[in-house]
């Protein structure tokens, strides 16, 4: 009796059907994923100029402070040496002349 019931139940279970999908679900899912991707790309592009600037600044890595200071001093020194105000000095017509100290300075010059 119990065995018959089991058999009968198995037959009944095997008749359980799943209806066909109503729509072209695969296509719908693929289209929806494309739509969501486009939407998210649009949202990322909506930040405008400041968002772009921020992105650029975020990518800039500051150099080592000591290295930066050395570079600034070197650039400053070179610019200073070759700037027209200095070079047009009557007594200095070259970089060597500019950095050389005159030997003719006497005590009188400081008093």
């Amino acid at each position, binding site marked *: 009796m119990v065995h018959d019931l089991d058999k009968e139940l198995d037959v009944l279970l095997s008749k359980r059907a799943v209806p066909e*999908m*109503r729509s072209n679900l695969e296509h*719908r899912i693929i289209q929806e*994923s494309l739509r969501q991707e486009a939407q998210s790309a649009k949202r990322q592009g909506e930040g405008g100029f400041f968002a772009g600037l921020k992105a650029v600044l975020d990518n800039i890595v500051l150099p080592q402070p000591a290295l930066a200071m050395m570079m600034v001093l070197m650039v400053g020194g070179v610019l200073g040496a070759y700037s027209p105000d200095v070079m047009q000095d009557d007594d200095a017509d070259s970089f060597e002349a500019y950095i050389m100290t005159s030997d003719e300075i006497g005590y009188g010059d400081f008093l």
Partner: protein
Amino acid sequence: MVPTHKLENLSDEELMVRVQDADHSAFSVLVTRHTRMFYAAAYRMYPYQDEAEDIVQEAFMKLWNRPEIWKADKGAKFTTWFYRVVTNQAIDFARKIKNTKGSEALDRITDKTANQQEVMEQAQQEQMLEDAIQELPERQKLALNLCFYEGLSNKEAAEIMEVGVKALESLLMRAKAGLKDILVRQGNLGDEEKRGHYYGS
């Protein structure tokens, strides 16, 4: 970019690695390959066509938007893992709108086949079985669906449900026993006379 016909030769797990690199073609192949199967699984958990379709769509969208939830290194098969995603989605969905649908499913079937006695009887029989299955506790229902309908081995089903094989077998036994009780109580099993009355013949 790999042509679609070549992607079709890849395994699900290989495709998932590509999906994690935002490869939409790989995602499309996965969708095309498995939608029908997961729709059937969703429908068996929640027997409404439109909602079952929505459940599968939501599950795939989750996969596309957050592919990192798939962990390749855990060694699980993609289908085993995605069954869990779909069934959890279906269970959540069913909980949210429990008791709001009532006998709507039967109404839909009888509306469609009002003048066709034979088809209607078959639809009633299917509906009666469906109702009985839906009466089972969630985990028993899931065990029955995975082993009986999805054709998964006990080991695979146990993996999906995150239980041991023994526990799964016990769930399966209780599901069948529960189903027998419900159907016998309703007079739809083991009593030809009552059943004839139910089907109107």
